[in-house]
Structures are given as C-alpha cells and as structure tokens.
C-alpha cells in the first residue's frame, strides 16, 4: 500500500543569491517558510513541482520537502530543512540573522 501523503512545500535556492527560497501560492518565491504554499495531495505537489522546475531563470535545485502545520504555520519535519530555514549553527549568519525570519 502506498504511504499516505504528507504535506509538502516546494523549495529551492535563489539563482543569484543562493539562499533558500520557498514557492508561494502566488507562484512567487519567498525567503520565509511561513509564506510557502502547503501542498496537501500528490497530484497538486507534482503539478507545483513541475511548475517550479520551469523557473530556472530564478531558482536552482527545486524539490519537495515535508512540513507539518504548527501554530505559526508550516514547520519542517526534518532537521536538514530546519537548518535551511535558519542558517548555520556556528555563526549567526544566514536567515536567522535577518529580521522577522519565521
């Protein structure tokens, strides 16, 4: 039996800056996970992923990542995605250093 679908978002890195971006429901790209469009079924996820893959002029390395809904919006389910939306742990660099991150 296929595994039940878990909510996902489309994420990538910005072509010019390289930083982590998330696809919004307006088909734009946001630096903030809270703005990401949540995808609740596989067909929708594949459609949005395909759309994102056409955005090579803006982003690089598009993929689907798992999220779960928290009180403040989508939250990563895996530590890798948590690091991506935060920044490195050895310096206060990356997204954590920017204002109003989450």
């Amino acid at each position, binding site marked *: 039996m296929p595994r039940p679908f878990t909510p996902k978002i489309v994420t990538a*890195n910005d*072509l*010019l*800056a*390289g*930083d*982590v971006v998330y696809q919004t429901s307006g088909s734009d790209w946001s630096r903030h996970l809270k703005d990401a469009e949540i995808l609740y079924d596989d067909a929708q996820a594949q459609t949005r992923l395909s759309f994102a893959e056409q955005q*090579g*002029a803006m982003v*690089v*390395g598009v993929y689907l990542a798992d999220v779960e809904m928290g009180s403040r919006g989508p939250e990563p*389910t*895996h*530590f*890798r995605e948590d*690091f*991506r939306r935060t*920044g*490195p*742990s*050895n*310096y206060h*660099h*990356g*997204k954590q250093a920017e204002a109003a991150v989450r």
Partner: protein
Amino acid sequence: MYHYTEFDKAFLATRNAQFRAQVERRIDGSLTEDEFKPLRLMNGLYLQLHAYMLRVAIPYGTLNSAQMRQLAYLAEKWDKGYGHFTTRQNIQYNWPKLRDVPDMLDALAEVGLHAIQTSGNTIRNVTADHFAGAAADEIADPRPVAELIRQWSTDHPEFQFLGRKFKIAITGGAEDRAVTRAHDIGLRIIDRDGETGFQVIVGGGLGRTPMIGSVIREFLPRADLLPYLEAVLSVYNTLGRRDNKYKARIKITVHENGIDKIRDLVEQRFGERRAMFSGIDQTLLTGIEAAFSAPEFRTASTNAFDAAYAGNPVFRSWADTNLTAHKAPGYSIVSISLKAHGQTPGDASADQMRVIADLAERCGHDQLRISHEQNVILPHVHKSDLPALHAVLREHGLGTANIGLISDIIACPGMDYCALATARSIPIAQDIATRFQDLKLEHDIGALKIKISGCINACGHHHVGHIGILGLDRAGVENYQITLGGDGSDTAAIGERAGPGFSADDIVPAIERLVLAYLDLRETADETFLQTYRRLGIDPFKAALYPEARANAA
C-alpha cells in the same frame, strides 16, 4: 616560491573571462542550470545549503603574504569576513553571490591563485607535506614536483572527464605528513643509493569504501614521474567503472583488478607514454626548482627564545606543542592553531589572515603553508623572533597551544553548510574542545587525533582519526558513529567501528568516557592513545563506550 609566468597569467585571464561570460549567459537565460553546473564546478563554484560556496585551491598548501592578504580581501569584500581552510589545502568562501564570483576569480588571479579543478571529475588540487621546504627530516622539497603536476594536470585534455575525482598527495619527509596512503596516488620522495626518486602508492582513499593504498612502484626515477602518472591515469580512465558512482574511484579499480594486474598494465602503458615525452617537462622542472630555493637563513642568538621558554609558562606550553624541528640551525617551524577552543576548526577571519600575513612578511621569509589538518604554518621562523610572534598571535586569538592534541580536531563543514552532509560536524568539534578544556586534561592526554565527518564521503578523514566520528541521519535524527584506531601516518590504518552510534547529546560524554578509559589503561604517561589501543585492542574501549552492554552481559 613559484611566480606565475606570462603564460600562466594569460591562461588564467582567458579562463576567467570564459567563466565570466558563462555566468552572464546563465543569468540572462542562455544557459540552463544543467548546462551551467559542470562549468561552475570546473571553476570551484558549488551550491550549498544556504548559499553558493567558492573553493579556492592553495596548491600544495603554499602561500606568500600577498596571497594571504588577498584571501582576506575576498573574505571581507565578497563574503562574511572569514574563510574556511579545508582538509585538502583549499580555502572555502561560504557566502558568495553568483554575480560576484567572476570578480573574485579575477582578484585571485592578481596574486596567482585560482579555483580551477577544485571540483569535478578531474585531477584535484595537489596536496603536499605542510612542512615542505622546512622539515628537518626532509629528503627533498616536494613542492617543485607538486607545481609541475599542477601545471601538467591543469586543463589536461585527457583527464578532464575521468570516471571520478582524482587526488594526488606528495611528501618529501621521512615522516608521512601528507596522508599519502589515503590518496588516489600518493608520492613519497625517497633516496636509493644516492639517487632521489618516488615510491608510488595507488588506490588509497576514504569515503564510502575506505582503503589504504598499495605500492605500485617501489622506486620511480624522478624524470619518469609525468609519464608514469599519465600511465596510471590512462589505465584508470580505461578500466575504471562508470556504471556506478560509488565504484568509480581508482581504489575500486585496483581492488577489483588486483594491484599486480594494474601494475602490469601501467608498466606497459608507461613504456608508450615515456616515448612521447621529449624532456621538456624536466627542463620546466629545473626552472621551477630554482623558484623554490631555500631562503637565506640567518645566524643569530637564540637567547630571547631560551629566556622566554624558561620564564614564561604560557609561551613554554605553546612552544612545546606548536613548534617543530627545522632543518636550519636556530629556526623553528611554527604551527598556528585555527582550533581555538569553541571555534570552528579551520576558520580564520580576514583580520587574522592579515595578522598572519604580516608575521610571515616580518619574520617568516614571506612564506606560509596551510595544513590538511586545517592549521596555518609559518615554516621558517628564527627562534629569536618567537616570543614576540607568540605575543602577537595571542592578541588575535591565534595563540592556542594545542597542535596534535585532543582539541586540534579536523572537522568538515557538515550540515551547517554542506548540501551532501547527513549531520553536523562543527558543533561536535566545538563541544569536544570546550569540554576537555574545562576538564583541563588536554595536555595530560597528549597526542590524540579526533577527526569528524558529517557524511560517508569522509572529508573530515574520520577513518584515519585515532578517534573518528561519522555523523549520520538515523530516522530523521543526527547520529554519530565512532571508529577507533585509525591512523593517517606511516603506519596508516582504517579505524574500526566501535558499535552503535550516539545522539548529538550523547556523543561528547561518550568521547569523554573513552578518553578517561585511555588514561586509566595506559601503561605510562608517554604511551599515546593509539599505542594503548594497539596494545589492548578495541574491547576495553568498547566497554567504556557501552557500559550498559557490559552490565547486561554480566
């Protein structure tokens, strides 16, 4: 040291102009990412977790002060004010913007540096003994040959599309400080009946399938080096597997075919290749050797050093750990630790790079080395200059007296930066270093190499750490496996896995139990961790790591 010729400068200018145009075409949409990616990788530009990363080669680990200042300039102008020195004698910038990279490469070219072949399935930056040209035990300086290999391998048309990356290390020391047995090709300069040549080792490597290299040629005359290297590469290029990325390195080719078959094929190919060399490589080498002639060492009193050593315990502690015997009387090799307790192993700020550059210029014959152990070396310092030099280092957070000790940890960037990582490395290194500093046991423990990798690819050399730590993702949680008894020196060995891994919270206490057990088990204070391990085997260390298992078995 070697200075770029007009040919080198023109080649690099052309290459950088090509890459600038490629970046422009990527940005204007003429190139897709699939088309652009191999081009950027050939020029050292990766995309990591949070940003692009530019990996700049420091060929055979050698820099002068002007180059170090330029590395500082790049860090400040286009990055976040620091750089990360790696286990392959490269420096990585973690935050460049795509549009800025061509300018960064042009700035590097101004001082004779580049990022070519720091990625991709080519011959990578050639690494060398970080005490090259200075060590008391040196048979010959390996750097002229390393520079010859750099020139030969750069853009070598036959070796731009190998089955996988290819790493060459070279040492001229009696002691192997370049981990030659864990490289695709390791070269050791040896002396046979008054003639210097090379012992050639092939098929070593770490990563998913760690292997200690085998000797393929006991003695190779100096003049035969390039044709012999071409023969090895050519045989690998023909036989090496391309069906499976994880079986594509030459270590697997050697393992699957056997060293004897590989040797026969290489010797046969070598005959053909040697006939194609006219001797121009040896003419070039003669010119390169002249560029690496030793500095004019001075003769002076060492009284200032002796007085500081006798009267200043902080200086004495640093001198005992961070100085190495030099070939010239009155001189020392200085290792500057980039492992201040709690800091990121291998990171230096732009200010620190400038301080180091100034010291090299003022009292180090303008020479610097970067070690694969992620420290900076001043290879030629007269002992009379050491007390003042040490004071300057301390002022800038560079005076840590821990070379070769438990806090002198190799750590890859891990999941704090690297897109391939399965767990973080840096915080584990930071926590181990600060824990043992708190315990004040570091100097009592003595020589101990801890090496940490954040994934199976083993950039942190964990397999050859006396204690190796491998970070993995176990069901969505960071998990750290310990290997014991690894060794990257002349007595090279792959570490043995101790047992189940530990969580991020449990790994530092586990290392503490392990090291305290060693202190109990050693016969004398002079018996190192590795010696104790070799005397007793893994069992008593396992018992310390897994006390519950022992209790359950009882």
